[in-house]
């Protein structure tokens, strides 16, 4: 059985001054997407993508339980997030808080939903911040890495020129 590995690209929108909405479709049933999303050994396989190594993936999957993810980027930069589960409906919906440890004031409320149709799953992540500054900083947190990638590339090019 073959299936398309790539199911399209994520769509990021900013529905309001304080929110981020991320949607993406996967070629897998929601029970599997939910498992990949909530199982520590599996989170370690995708959460850092190719930017680094996941060093911590702690998941206490119950209402009031805490979670913490950390990764070490290839450039030696540690990025960690933690939060608390507020609502859990297996294979359907996860509501949790999220704090980027580099900016402890900016606690967000994340609502992740898993919707299946014809064996495919639409994943929706709604990130709600209290302030626009925090929302903006959240978006920029993803850029530190991107910038680092660019700098690494510049360095490689520079070395190749020596």
């Amino acid at each position, binding site marked *: 059985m073959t299936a398309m590995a790539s199911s399209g*690209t994520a769509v990021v929108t900013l529905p309001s001054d304080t929110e981020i909405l991320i949607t993406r479709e996967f070629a897998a049933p929601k029970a599997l997407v939910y498992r990949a999303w909530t199982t520590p050994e599996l989170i370690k396989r995708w959460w850092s993508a190719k930017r680094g190594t996941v060093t911590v993936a702690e998941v206490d999957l119950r209402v009031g339980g805490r979670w913490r993810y950390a990764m070490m980027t290839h450039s030696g930069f540690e990025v960690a997030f933690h939060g608390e589960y507020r609502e859990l409906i297996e294979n359907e919906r996860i509501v949790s808080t999220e704090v980027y440890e580099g900016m402890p004031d900016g606690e967000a409320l994340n609502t992740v939903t898993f919707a299946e149709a014809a064996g495919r799953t639409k994943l929706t992540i709604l990130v709600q911040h209290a302030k626009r500054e925090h929302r903006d900083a959240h978006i920029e947190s993803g850029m530190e890495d991107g910038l680092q990638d660019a700098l690494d590339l510049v360095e490689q090019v520079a070395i190749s020129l020596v």
Partner: protein
Amino acid sequence: MARAPTTTDAFNAVAEPRRRDILNLLADGERPVNDLVVELGLAQPQVSKHLRVLREVGLVEVREEGRQRLYRLQGRQLKPIHDWVKRFERSWNERFEAMDELLEELKRKEHRDDGNGE
């Protein structure tokens, strides 16, 4: 990371929901002020104030035609904001691609397990 002041202006300009409404309306084409006033259900001075902010950061352009002032979107000025969000999107795409690989593996495993069970 601090943003360049000019960029901050454009970012601040679109942070206001009404101004985003104006940009959305102008995305469909050039419009006279009165149209915008009617569509938005705001008082003319308020709409004019928002348009002034948008004009100052270069997000809209205005031209006179007879007695009308026509406003038009300058899409190019939205590019820094678009790029900003796109970069964030890219980092999520990388994660999701890693999830795709993992999910394929999980599917194969489930398929195999099902086969063994029969």
